[in-house]
């Protein structure tokens, strides 16, 4: 794997993401009334095809559902909230409560996941934007269903059919403590945007250290 950032930048990106994803996790926790466990975020530079393979491995080749939001500003890319398909209805049930009948729950599943994605992804993006003091404009969330490659194909990065330039792939796993629901949150940025993102993070760290 080619590395485009040094140890310090990687550490700073991870820390900033930790905070942003912490905000997202707090929102999810409130929605489903359960504690959310987070993995340590990891940052990799991969081709779009490698990123799809990575996602495919983690979802064990099964179909997933994802809510994707494109964002743009000083840096741009896609942020995705991904759940194994078989668990998504459970999540919606936890969110809307037991009083909603199953047939209505199924009908509302896609809309409910979009709203979950809207809240979680915006909490994460908003936290990043506030920390870095740079506005980030998010598109309306969209719903994608399929295997890892299909989900990442829906992103607007790369544009080279998965074989071309590298992308920065930021990824964190989360799970609900009591409800046996887990998922993934991923950022995908092309290299130019990743460079701008890392510069913004460096400026943030410098400002913090300068007091």
């Amino acid at each position, binding site marked *: 794997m080619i590395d485009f950032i040094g140890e310090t930048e990687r550490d700073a990106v991870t820390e900033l993401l930790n905070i942003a994803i912490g905000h997202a996790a707090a929102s999810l926790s409130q*929605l489903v009334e359960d504690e959310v466990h987070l993995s340590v975020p990891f940052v990799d530079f991969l081709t779009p095809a490698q990123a799809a393979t990575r996602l495919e491995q983690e979802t064990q080749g099964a179909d997933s559902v994802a809510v994707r939001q494109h964002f743009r500003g000083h840096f741009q890319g896609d942020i995705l909230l991904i759940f194994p398909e078989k668990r998504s209805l459970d999540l919606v049930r936890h969110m809307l409560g037991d009083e909603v009948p199953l047939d209505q729950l199924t009908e509302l599943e896609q809309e*409910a996941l979009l709203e979950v994605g809207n809240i979680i992804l915006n909490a994460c993006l908003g936290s990043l934007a506030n920390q870095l003091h740079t506005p980030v404009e998010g598109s*309306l969330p969209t719903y994608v269903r399929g295997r890892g490659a299909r989900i990442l194909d829906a992103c607007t990065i790369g544009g080279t059919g998965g074989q071309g330039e590298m992308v920065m792939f930021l990824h964190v796993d989360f799970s609900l403590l009591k409800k046996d629901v887990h998922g993934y949150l991923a950022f995908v940025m092309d290299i130019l945007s990743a460079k701008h993102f890392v510069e913004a993070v460096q400026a943030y760290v410098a400002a913090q250290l300068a007091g």
Partner: protein
Amino acid sequence: MSVKTVLLVDDSRVARMMTRRVVETKRPGWVVLEAGSGEEGLAVLVEARPDYVVLDVNMPGIGGIETARRMRAVSPDVRVTLLTANIQDPVRHQAEDMGVGFLTKPLHEDELLAFLGDDAP
């Protein structure tokens, strides 16, 4: 203590359902109206003259900020709050500048009730 009317404007039906549930539970008897876009919300505002408007920000069409601005122009006395997942400071500041509330998703019941005041019937 009088019955009030609350207009919920959000492109997400699920989001409207969750907010409606809180209003109907905590303010029984109040009238809850819904609109799925800013444009529709403005039309309902003119027709029904609600007391409160709870407004999403990121919606197709004119969006929540512009909708709030137009609602203010049409009906200066209506009490409006944004209810949004977009927690960025500039959005919060725009709300403050317009004199409208700013609530964040997921909905915090106590914050919504504070916005709705002590008008429980």
